[in-house]
């Protein structure tokens, strides 16, 4: 009896030991993500990592840690490009900006995803479930080709934050009608039909310095701040920035309609607080959150602080709508705004490509996309974002989804950084009074950008 019992205990101990040893042999991976510091959607990718760890352990048979490394928008490109130039395996996944796809792809620093997407049913399904606008902006290089290099980490677009408490104040409504002869727009639907000419009257009405100004937009030279807004105005005015077939800029970027749009956008400074000519994303959010402005044109992704009562004085008083359009001669409303958002790309030097792909497969699972949305991110899978539940989840969600259809992205050319800096320089020079008129600024941008494109052999 004792011998049998001893034998049983021995067998159990051996089995336990074996189990422990098998568990100890379970692969452990550390995935490293480089993202945008202080940018909620980027940070959520790492904050949600424990969920992936659970998923990987349960479904993929390995344990995983995800570590994040951060750089602000203005220096993320340099950090990512430096790692690539050194062929470093420091980052497995990089949250890139869509404009960088060309530079990273041409250098062979990121892996092409077509075959991977084709062979992974989960990814294939997710990509098919995205809007073409997102596929074109976040995945494709060269423009118009079928080559995919990234997947959207988050979607984003320009939306308009407005003070609904002021719009719904009967005294304001009466005063406005007396002054302009028509009603203040008050609902989401009213703003959906609003053109710039009408909206300008609204912001003029609410410009009451020094305590309240009508509007805040981005005009800063940093990164792409003024470009996002000026290019949106060009497109909305019916203009363009480049001929994608020939890469010609002259006659397109400096067209009369673009000159008019640039002049109009800079002219809006008169409805903005002092110093608005150096406003970037942070300053616009602050101006809105502190109740300094009636309206702010900025990204859907940065809505959270405006609605956080700990950070905002107007947390309960803001609604998010589509920005105004431009009334065309035929009476239609044209509204084309810059897309924000970022793709993520897999480093060609990563030692954990398979696990990085697993991570992305997990990211596009509906439950992960829902969790991302619940935490304040902007998912891209249509089965999530096209639902009423999603569009009512956060105050900016509906405008985010509606603006996808009117979204357009920058060029994805490898020399994007130079093209961008040229227009940042010339447009901020005009906004700050150094360039005498919009035509001079746009002519200079077009001439300088074509020289860069010519030097790079991209001009046809």
């Amino acid at each position, binding site marked *: 009896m004792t011998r049998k019992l001893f034998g049983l205990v021995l067998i159990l101990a051996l089995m336990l030991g074996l189990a422990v040893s098998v568990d100890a042999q379970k692969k452990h991976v550390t995935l490293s993500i480089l993202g945008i510091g202080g940018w909620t959607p980027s940070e959520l990718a790492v904050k949600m990592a424990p969920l992936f760890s659970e998923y990987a352990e349960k479904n993929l048979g390995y344990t995983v840690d995800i570590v994040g490394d951060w750089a602000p928008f*203005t220096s993320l*490109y*340099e950090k990512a*490009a*430096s790692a*690539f*130039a050194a062929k470093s395996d420091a980052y497995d996944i990089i949250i890139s900006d869509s404009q960088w796809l060309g*530079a990273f792809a*041409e*250098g*062979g*620093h990121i892996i092409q995803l077509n075959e991977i997407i084709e062979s992974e049913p989960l990814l294939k399904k997710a990509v098919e479930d995205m809007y073409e606008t997102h596929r074109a902006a976040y995945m494709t290089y060269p423009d118009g080709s079928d080559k995919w290099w990234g997947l959207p980490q988050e979607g984003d677009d320009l939306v308009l934050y407005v003070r609904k408490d002021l719009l719904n104040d009967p005294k304001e409504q009466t005063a406005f009608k007396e002054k302009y002869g028509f009603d203040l727009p008050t609902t989401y639907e009213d703003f959906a039909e609003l053109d710039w000419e009408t909206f300008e009257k609204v912001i003029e009405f609410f410009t009451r310095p020094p305590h309240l100004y009508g509007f805040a937009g981005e005009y*800063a*030279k*940093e990164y792409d701040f003024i470009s996002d807004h000026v290019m949106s105005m060009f497109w909305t005015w019916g203009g363009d920035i480049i001929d994608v077939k020939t890469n010609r800029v002259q006659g397109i970027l400096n067209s009369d309609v673009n000159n008019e749009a640039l002049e109009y956008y800079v002219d809006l400074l008169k409805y903005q*607080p*002092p*110093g608005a*000519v*150096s406003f970037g994303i942070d300053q616009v959010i602050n101006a809105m959150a502190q109740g300094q402005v009636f309206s702010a044109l900025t990204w859907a992704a940065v809505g959270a602080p405006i609605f956080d009562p700990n950070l905002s004085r107007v947390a309960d008083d803001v609604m998010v709508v589509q920005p105004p359009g431009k009334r065309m001669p035929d009476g239609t409303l044209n509204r084309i705004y810059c897309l924000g958002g970022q793709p993520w790309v897999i480093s060609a030097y990563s030692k954990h490509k398979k696990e990085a792909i697993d991570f992305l497969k997990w990211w596009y699972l509906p439950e992960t996309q829902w969790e991302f949305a619940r935490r304040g991110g902007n998912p891209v899978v249509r089965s999530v974002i096209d639902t009423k539940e999603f569009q009512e989840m956060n105050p900016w969600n509906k405008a985010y989804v509606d603006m996808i259809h009117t979204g357009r992205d920058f060029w994805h050319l*490898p*020399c994007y*950084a*130079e093209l961008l*800096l040229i227009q*940042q*320089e*010339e447009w*901020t*020079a*005009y*906004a*700050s*009074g*150094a*360039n005498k008129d919009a035509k001079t600024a746009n002519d200079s941008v077009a001439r*300088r950008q074509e020289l860069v494109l010519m030097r790079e052999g991209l001009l046809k």
Partner: protein
Amino acid sequence: MFSQRIKWWFITPMLVFLFLWNVLPLLWVVGLSFYNYSVLKGGTPRFVGFLNYLLLHMDPYMWERFRTTFLFVLLAVALELVIGFVLGFFFNQKIKGKKYMLPLIFVPMIVAPVAAGVFFRFIYDPHWGIINYFLNTLFGFRLEFLEDAALAMPAVVAVDVWMWSPFMMLMCLAGLQAVPKHLYEAAEIDRLSWWTQFRYIVLPHIKPVLVLAVLLRTIDAFKIFDIIFVMTGGGPGSATEVLPMTLYRNAFLFWRTGSASALAVVLLLIAVAFTSLYLLLIPRPRTEG
């Protein structure tokens, strides 16, 4: 013989270090400047001779950057020299509490330039900046120091002057204190005017120190990057876009390694030219004979 050898044993590690850390990278940069190469694009560097230099020469925007940089250097160093000299002259007198005041004056010099940049960004802010608070309270207007293309350069120059005038003062003070006292006494007896004393006694004695101070500050101001990067990013437009920023953008934003190397070599040559000018200007020690 042994002492000769041991001398080399001591010197060689430093020479090897100097070669690996200074000379070799310098030669590498000079070499790269003759190639069309991007470290991000990779591929084989293509020899283009002096093309990178020629393109720099032909680029009108590069000349604009040179003008902006020289303007910054000229304004900053001239003001620092004048303020530093006045302060040095002041502190060369017998003043009560001098030993407490001097360390305070040196504080800006030990502030990190990036911190100073951020600090002054707030000071200049059109809304809550202290300068605009007083302007608005006293005169009813505000100035957009960093947002106005005409004011941005003076605003960043002022920060550099705030930081580095104490250095000039220190150098001037050292020079002034080295002037032999008996010369002043002789001048007093001869009833020489203040200007004559300054012209014939003070200036000849402090000239080498002043020239060295101006040279050091000129080379340093020519490399200005951090303060401007933090305060204006070279803007608005290109109002404060100095050469080191252009070099940085070429090297690490556009990844035009060959072109950036050519610009780096040009900047190096300018620094060498300043140093040579110093060697020409500095009075040679008189040989007793």
